[in-house]
């Protein structure tokens, strides 16, 4: 960790690291909030499909860049459009289609990912390393991306808080919310769109495969300690910030992919509280009166 802080304060070499850390800490706020909704509403598989379909957009953006010479389209733009599109598609399918939900989610998941891999290959871009998108790469956060990412973060956090009670209601009891005049479909689509944007915030850093871990694990970790949804949000924001900082701190000096380190730290923390809780319950069981 000492090396990490030394690198971070390096005026020249530390620029990418500083940018990555700024994005990671800002995105932790969006992740803590949206992750709480995802865990509470049990839609982590939907979020996984959205994350993976972002690769389709990255591939398409590279293809357009290389083959059609439209250079102002960045991979980040492609990823954002693809994630929002798949969020809309998944929302539509889960609300209206008669097909089995998990089947069609898996189909969208692999379609996005395979399209991305095919288009990346066809684009012929020499400098593109597919693995850096899939597993994440700190160097992928460019200075021009930085401001877009921070703006998206602000949008997600603002909307997620403004519509707090509506989101809580559709997580807890969507049918009742609908009966009380809440336009549940609109809020469901909005929630999926905010999840999609959140995923894009950290996709560069953590990679498509592992970004979902950072959405779900801090919230699942926080759920062990929280009695209310907003406490769970605060705790998972702090947990997410801690996980990315520690993960990056470990990854940089040893030159391990940051995404893998961050996800591993998050998973370790989650399993520790899980085991801790079940041990505590086992120890205190004789003193607990049976619940009705």
């Amino acid at each position: 960790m000492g090396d990490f802080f030394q690198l971070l304060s390096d005026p020249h070499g530390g620029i990418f690291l500083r940018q990555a850390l700024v994005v990671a800490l800002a995105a932790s706020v969006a992740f803590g909030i949206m992750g709480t909704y995802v865990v509470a509403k049990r839609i982590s598989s939907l979020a996984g499909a959205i994350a993976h379909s972002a690769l389709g957009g990255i591939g398409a953006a590279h293809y357009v860049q290389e083959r059609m010479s439209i250079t102002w389209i960045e991979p980040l733009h492609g990823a954002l459009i693809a994630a929002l599109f798949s969020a809309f598609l998944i929302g539509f399918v889960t609300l209206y289609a008669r097909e089995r939900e998990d089947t069609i989610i898996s189909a969208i998941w692999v379609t996005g990912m395979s399209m991305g891999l095919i288009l990346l290959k066809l684009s012929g871009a020499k400098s593109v390393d597919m693995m850096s998108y899939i597993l994440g790469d700190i160097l992928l956060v460019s200075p021009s991306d930085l401001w877009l990412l921070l703006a998206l973060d602000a949008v997600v956090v603002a909307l997620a808080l403004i519509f707090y009670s509506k989101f809580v209601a559709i997580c807890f009891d969507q049918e009742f919310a609908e009966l009380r005049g809440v336009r549940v479909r609109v809020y469901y689509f909005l929630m999926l769109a905010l999840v999609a944007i959140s995923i894009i915030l950290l996709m560069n850093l953590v990679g498509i495969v592992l970004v979902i871990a950072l959405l779900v694990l801090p919230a699942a970790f926080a759920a062990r300690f929280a009695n209310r949804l907003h406490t769970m949000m605060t705790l998972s924001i702090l947990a997410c910030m801690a996980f990315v900082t520690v993960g990056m701190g470990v990854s940089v000096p040893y030159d391990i992919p940051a995404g893998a380190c961050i996800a591993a730290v998050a998973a370790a923390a989650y399993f520790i509280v899980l085991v801790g809780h079940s041990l505590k319950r086992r120890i205190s069981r004789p003193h607990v009166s049976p619940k009705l």
Partner: protein
Amino acid sequence: MIASAPPATATTPDTDTILRLSGVSFAYDNVPVLRDVSFSIHARESVCIVGPNGGGKSTLLKLILGLLKPDSGEIELFGCRPKAGRNRIGYMPQMVHFDPMFPISVRDVVLMGKLDCISTGWFSGNHKKLAMEALAELDMADYADRRFSNLSGGQRQRVLIARALVCDPDLLLLDEPTANVDQAVEEDFYATLEKLNDRMAIMLVSHDLGFVSRFVKSVICVNRTVHVHPTADLTGRDIREVYGEDMAAIRHDHRCSSEGHDH
């Protein structure tokens, strides 16, 4: 006074019909669930819907709540379409409907009954006061800050009724309110319903016919078609007609699964 309360509607005399179904039929993918259902419910009436699993009870509720549209026939709720009239229903869903791990306080559950009064995300102090009053009416005010999932079955049921009451309903619609509740709690529950029935009509779905015959004035038997019986006339023969076989086991022990009666 409540600034955001809906404008006062025309007062409904006691004898007014608040819910009327005429010739309602519904099918899921060409599998008929309900056929030619007609009945009506008046203000401050108390009725119970009984019937076998798969007989169409839930479908009937969803039709009344405007969550499904009938294939044919007409449903009139407080003189409007169900979607327009349903804000005057206080609805309590089945307990199995809830995630047992969900982190939410009792007060926040009850506040959901006021969702129609807010445009963005936050409830006012006045909404919180109304939620506390509803909780107090069901003797649950002391539990306001407790976690909903840590309550017993009977307590959770009271909280959900408080949530339905905070909507200030003219019709209370309770889906399986006596499931997972022990006998002693059930006695209390019966007294609470009688008290509430002075202010509003109550319609409940139950397997517990013993409970039903003591509280409600009439029974709506649902099994594809619908028969309405005044409780006083309720005989074993009527029940057999609906369930297709002897109801004794269910009548005396509603915990006995009725799955064996699937038609």
